[in-house]
């Protein structure tokens, strides 16, 4: 029996919340033909708070759930998001008491990198017409939106992970 306030119950709840936002609210937030990507945001924020392990796991879970609703090959977002979550965790995960703006800047950079990586991997897998000048517009829009939403996402993920036992040293 899983208690309701353990991460095991809260993490899926946050994942579902982000999915609902991604699939419904974001329809209406389009600028220059591009919208935010909160599933990517979830991977980034999880990496910031929980380190590489949590970042990679969150990224994979968020990506595979999002892939269910896309026409691009299944697993593509999962691949990209878990790499992004892992990388962010490695760079940022160790910083415990950062200034408030550091996660925001990290989110911007990581989101831009995530979009570019996605387009790159998708092109390798055979999706046509993604690497165009418009790609940089998309990356910038996603980066800015995600950076703006980062403070809220950080709180949600911190809440979801609260109560998680600290990572063991495996030594």
């Amino acid at each position, binding site marked *: 029996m899983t208690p309701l306030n353990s991460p095991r119950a809260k993490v899926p709840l946050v994942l579902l919340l982000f999915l*609902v936002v991604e699939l419904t609210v974001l329809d209406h937030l389009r600028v220059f033909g591009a919208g935010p990507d909160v599933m990517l945001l979830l991977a980034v924020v999880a990496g910031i708070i929980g380190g590489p*392990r949590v970042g990679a*796991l969150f990224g994979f879970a968020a990506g595979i759930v999002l892939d269910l609703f896309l026409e691009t090959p299944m697993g593509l977002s999962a691949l990209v998001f878990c790499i992004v979550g892992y990388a962010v965790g490695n760079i940022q995960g160790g910083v415990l008491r950062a200034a408030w703006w550091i996660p925001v800047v990290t989110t911007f950079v990581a989101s831009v990198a995530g979009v570019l990586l996605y387009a790159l991997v998708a092109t390798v897998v055979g999706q046509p017409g993604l690497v165009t000048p418009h790609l940089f517009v998309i990356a910038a829009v996603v980066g800015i939106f995600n950076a703006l939403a980062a403070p809220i996402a950080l709180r949600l993920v911190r809440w979801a992970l609260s109560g998680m036992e600290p990572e063991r040293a495996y030594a």
Partner: protein
Amino acid sequence: MAVYRRSTRHRFLLVLLVLTSITVITVDVRGGGGGAMESIRRGARDAFAPVQSAADDVINPVGDFFGGLFRYGHLKAENARLRNQLNAMKGKVNASTDAERERAEFAALNKLSFADNLPAVAARVVATSPSNFQETVEIDRGLPAGIQKGMPVVTGAGLVGKVVAVSQQRATILLLTDPSFNVGIRLSSSGDVGVARGNGTREPLPVDLVDVGTKVTGGEVVVTSGLQGSVFPPSIPVGKVRSAKVQPGSLQQEVTIDPLVDLNRLDFVKVLLWQPSSSPP
């Protein structure tokens, strides 16, 4: 030492997840869109449909408000344009009554309006694409309405796209501006054929394989060619020619077309219950 071991363990997890993703991608791509992945996706979409509808009911008024803010200038200009149009139309109404009767007779005689002999299902667009990398919309009808993968989707103005995924309650439509979209077209004045392909949101569609000698006029309507093996029935209007030029030494004309349908404001669409196999040329 402990730190070193920990990072090795993390790296192992990353490699595991990456390999899993690549396996899933491979299974999906090689599987040709059928099988297990397909049914998992269908299940997920059906399960999510009620959540989406409920959330949309809450969000739509707010979203329209913000959408209006972003497009304020556009809406204002459109308002002025529509007023002008209305005035012009008022003047034309009397004159057009007679022409309308003639047109109706003519259409009845020649069956000019496209695809009127095909069964169709009307549906409402309930969502746009959740990704920045695909041009799709979702409609609120699915398998029970007879919709199948590959069926063409139109509005009164012309071609919208084709169905690429269907579940019990939803169908996903690939818009003709998506980079992976191709359609065989015929130029209405010369009858020459070519292939138009999507080029991203709000970008005109380039047309390949149009002969250098063909005379292409700006604003001319192009329709689906419906040649054998085509994925669309013939004579559905696709777009209007935006530009046409011949580069020296080129073997084909550089023709671009604009879609006839305003793809940013789809509300109701019709799915034509037509499949390439069901009506051989």
